[in-house]
């Protein structure tokens, strides 16, 4: 399946885009998505290794199955405050 992932901050800057489309097997988990994104976007790979994913407005765990009906985002280490 094809998954759209929103990018923010340094990830957006490194990819030169607000979002990327990534192909992953059906029923893949977020760990698999991270691998596929890193392979497709080498400039992002270091930051992906330190990032989490979110579905909608909640963090997900690496072992969670991707729900492609939700808005998926890559959340690099945060620095608000």
């Amino acid at each position: 399946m094809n998954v759209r992932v929103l990018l923010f901050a340094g990830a957006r800057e490194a990819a030169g885009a607000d979002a990327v489309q990534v192909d992953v097997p059906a029923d893949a988990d977020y760990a698999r998505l991270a691998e596929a994104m890193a392979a497709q976007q080498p400039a992002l790979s270091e930051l992906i290794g330190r990032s989490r994913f979110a579905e909608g407005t909640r963090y997900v765990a690496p072992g969670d199955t991707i729900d492609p009906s939700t808005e998926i985002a890559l959340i690099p280490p945060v620095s608000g405050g």
Partner: protein
Amino acid sequence: MIALTHQPIDTTKLVADASQPAAGAVVLFLGITREFTAGRQTRELAYEAHAAMAEAELARLEAAARDRWPLVACSIVHRLGEVPLAEASVAVVASSPHRADAFEAARWLIDELKQTVPIWKQEHYADGETEWVHNQPT
């Protein structure tokens, strides 16, 4: 109350709203743009958010703080976009009948915000360089 804003944060109003007769103590925390970090000069900071998720995370933090401490008021406001030197990027206000609770809640809220809320800071250095900050939060 939680909010994201592109305008300067109205801290006077936040403190006034928290100063209610049921409270005996009000604590305001402001994170402001500091000029020097590790010897390097900052001209200003810029903040970006995953806005929908940041608002949801902030609302969860407010609810968790209200569960944990007897708060009269609890507000978290984060500014987005460019924040000049000495202006506030974030304001946390807690009020409670007794001061220990307001102090603890305000400290906990800013510590948690820095760990979990999807907001990012970009350094705009005085020498013209820019840099997104993605260190592990401390």
